[in-house]
């Protein structure tokens, strides 16, 4: 197991190294002079030169790369050009928000999706199965801005019009909101994200259950005289959910940084919106920082998926 873990960690570091190189190179190749972006068009050549000197842009590229990596690792992420504020606390604040949203989404969607998928799989080709499959596929076909707005219409405006307690339509969190304060604002964006994930997890769980049901060990378990509930929960589910668990872990990466549309619909201050903002302003240091955090999130989610799989599947534990 430790050997397996070491190998996976090695791969993780390699991934981060490669992406940092890519991110660094791309930002170097982008047209335009950073100092001109910072100082504006009207500035003189002397001021530009001073700026380049200050930012270290005249040094050879490997030096620039190493100093960037070093600062990245020590938490000295510098100032964002556009807001003139420190990048590190900004990104960390947004990361926290994104994690909150991702967590709530998973807590809502995983039990529901796994239950629906299992019911569908255990009743293969029966009406229940068809209903679940059609419903989850219909929902995934709708874009997030449509489902998001429909949810707002219904749970926010619709309920309020009838004088019922309603959920907030905007999820613009006040700074330093505690989790409990934020929770009502998280529900609608989470539901929207859930509708995207649902079909995927349902289909995968269903396929896993159907495949496991055909395996001879299930027959062995039934013919031992075990009650059907034990056969399903103890024997089938653990094996059937293996692929699903991997996908859930990987989707965590997407939830952290890929919810650009949902965050925009709900005005939610997450990493996705921050990235859009940074690109909009051509704020290179901010783009680099958000990208690296995103990559780290994806890599960690992947690692977690692999480790979970190894932990639950004894056949590869010693791989």
């Amino acid at each position, binding site marked *: 197991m430790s050997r397996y873990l070491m190998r996976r960690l090695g791969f993780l570091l390699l991934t981060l190294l490669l992406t940092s190189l890519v991110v660094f190179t791309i930002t170097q190749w982008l047209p335009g002079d950073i100092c001109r972006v910072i100082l504006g068009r009207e500035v003189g050549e002397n001021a530009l030169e001073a700026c380049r000197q200050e930012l270290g842009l005249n040094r050879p590229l490997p030096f620039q790369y190493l100093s960037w990596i070093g600062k990245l690792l020590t938490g000295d992420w510098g100032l964002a050009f556009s807001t003139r504020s420190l990048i590190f606390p900004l990104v960390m604040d947004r990361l926290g928000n994104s994690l909150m949203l991702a967590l709530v989404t998973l807590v809502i969607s995983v039990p529901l999706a796994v239950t629906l998928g299992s019911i569908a799989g255990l009743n293969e080709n029966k009406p229940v199965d068809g209903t679940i499959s059609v419903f989850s596929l219909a929902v995934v076909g709708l874009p997030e801005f449509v489902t998001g707005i429909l949810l707002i219409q219904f749970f926010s405006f619709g309920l309020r019009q009838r004088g019922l307690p309603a959920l907030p339509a905007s999820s613009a969190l006040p700074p330093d909101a505690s989790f409990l304060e934020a929770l009502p604002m998280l529900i609608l964006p989470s539901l929207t994200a859930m509708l995207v994930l649902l079909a995927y997890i349902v289909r995968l769980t269903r396929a896993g259950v159907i495949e496991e049901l055909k395996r*001879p*060990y299930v027959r062995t378990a039934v013919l031992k*005289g075990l009650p059907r509930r034990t056969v399903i929960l*103890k024997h089938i589910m653990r*094996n059937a959910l293996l692929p699903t668990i991997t996908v859930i872990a990987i989707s965590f990466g997407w939830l952290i940084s890929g919810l650009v549309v949902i965050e925009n619909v709900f005005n939610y201050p997450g990493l996705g919106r921050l990235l859009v903002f940074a690109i909009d302003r051509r704020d290179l240091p901010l783009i680099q920082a958000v990208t690296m955090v995103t990559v780290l999130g994806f890599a960690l989610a992947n690692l977690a998926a692999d480790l979970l799989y190894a932990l639950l599947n*004894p056949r590869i534990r010693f791989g």
Partner: protein
Amino acid sequence: MITPVLQIENLTVAYRRGGEWLEAVRDVSFHVHAGETFGVVGESGSGKTTLALAAMRYLGENGAVKAGRITLAGRDLLALSPVEMEPVWGKQIALVPQNPQSSLNPSMLIGEQLAEVLRHQFAMDAVEANRQALDWFERVHMPDPDRVANSYPHQVSAGMQQRVLIATALCTEPQLLILDEPTSNLDVTTQAVILDLVRELIRGRQTAVLYVTHNLGVVAQVCDRVGVLYAGEFVEQASTRELFSQPLHPYTQGLLASVPLLGETKEKIHLWAIPGQIPPLGKLPGGCVFRPRCGLAVQICETQPPLYVSGLKRVSRCHRWEEIQKGEVGDWRVPTVSKVSAPGEDERRRLVLNLDALHVDYPQRPSLKEMLRHRPARKVSAVRGVSLAIPQGRTVGLVGESGSGKTSLARAIMGLTISSAGSMELLEIPLPASLSQRDLATLRHLQMMFQNPEEALNPFLTVGETLRRPLIILLGKSRAEADREVADLLQAVRLPASYAARLPGQLSGGELQRIAIARAFASNPALLICDEPVSALDVSVQAAILNLLLELQAESGSSLLLISHDLAAVGYLADEIAVIYLGSLMEVAQATDLFQTPYHPYTEALLSAIPLIDPTAEQRPIRLAGDIPSPTETPTGCPFHTRCPRFLGEICQKETPPWREVKATSKRYYCHIPEDDLRAVQERLPVFGQPLTG
């Protein structure tokens, strides 16, 4: 009258396929008493597994009992609902399934898989259940029960997995035990140990046993009474002794005559091949189901025969059973002189293949620690110094259990795996180890056919395209010439020329293997390697394939290297036999000499492990301890010493044995024990080469 434990009357079971009910088992009746073992023998598609599962009322969603009665100790099982079956399953009826590997839950500890039954069926607490589970593991002679209980299924061998399933089935002391091909995926030495175990455990337990298998030898050795199932019907039922000494149905006769007995050779006997194949579900012929394949079919066979009572407690579903009994028709197992002539021993033949001290190693990926300390790379030695010569036109058999390195050796000869040391010569010219260094002329002379024709033939190429390729690529023929020759090839393997347009998916297993043979012989190779050519096929089709191989070899003069775990088949087909264990040859002899004492102790164990197709044969049980060692940790000295029943002591552990030549025979063997000492302790094994009846 004692009530039988299991009584099945006029049972018909059907499956629904595309809105249509297809009857897989029709009008089957039999009973099993306490303490009795009833065998159901049949080929694939005969309905034997359906019958076993129907007896447990476990048919799946699309299966249903259409007619008949199933009673368990007088209780009507068909009247029970699925929920009411739960207390019957496991407690009163237990199943030992085929494929032990996939029949255990891969992600659950082995101990728990047995303990959960004890907890559920006897309401035991966890501590008591775990303790009793260990007791049961000891009762099935599990080596190191503690360790096995805390392992996952993939961490133990197939033989140990099957012991787990046997213990799980027996731990509730069920009235009825159903064994569905429990040994068919095991090596012959493991099979022998498992069969011993089954016999030991059911003796004195008064369990009724339903034993389902395709293996006639297993039936002969284990069962008291037998029913022969063909295309869903019992064609014959009798006591094991009667059935094997005087079969009264042409199908039973055909089955017995189509299997070579241990020690029978191609010079002495011509195998009886049952023509055709088992009819698929839903395409049954009218009248007698066996009629299209039966040599005795006459007009009356177009009406369905009833079950004729053909003796005390025996029945036959053949209109002509009385004539068969009197010996008027159905001359089965007449030793016909085959066309194959014994090759002259003194004749100096050109060597088609010569292997000298061939090694095949698979390097293992080193761990980080090993890399840092510059340890030499570990490797798995699959083949360790094999020297073997194959003369022109002759057949050399290579016999070994799984993991013995026989397939690695074949792959090395073919160049699919690169041998790591030693030399090879093809037609007295050095043969490069790597496939990429061999020219077309070499490839042309070296062909191989594989165990599973369904996987070996490209499913998207028609038979014609498959057969054309070697002709065009290896022999440089034009497309038109090749097309003409495809027809000849098909004719040679007894298939109509129209088959050239078919795809592999439209052919049966036996037909596919014929295509594979035609493809292999297309380039007229000097050497054809056959890797388990018949073991994926049904018994009644095997003989036809073996006969075909013999015939084509006689015509083409090709040499064969026949790789198989089946000593009887190899003994029948081969001129010379090499026995391989853990990558080393143990014994090499002419086929006729191999079955004579003295044997190498491993050969002796192999021979005594084979269940003989004769219930009266007394076999000396020589059983091997443990499992074949992992190739990463090959034993020092003699590779066989860890399991050898004739282990001498230190010398076997420390020194590699010498090759000894047995006086006045062609036999040489690799052992520390001298010829005379072996002869003194070994007995000649019974019934070799002798037909069952007169």
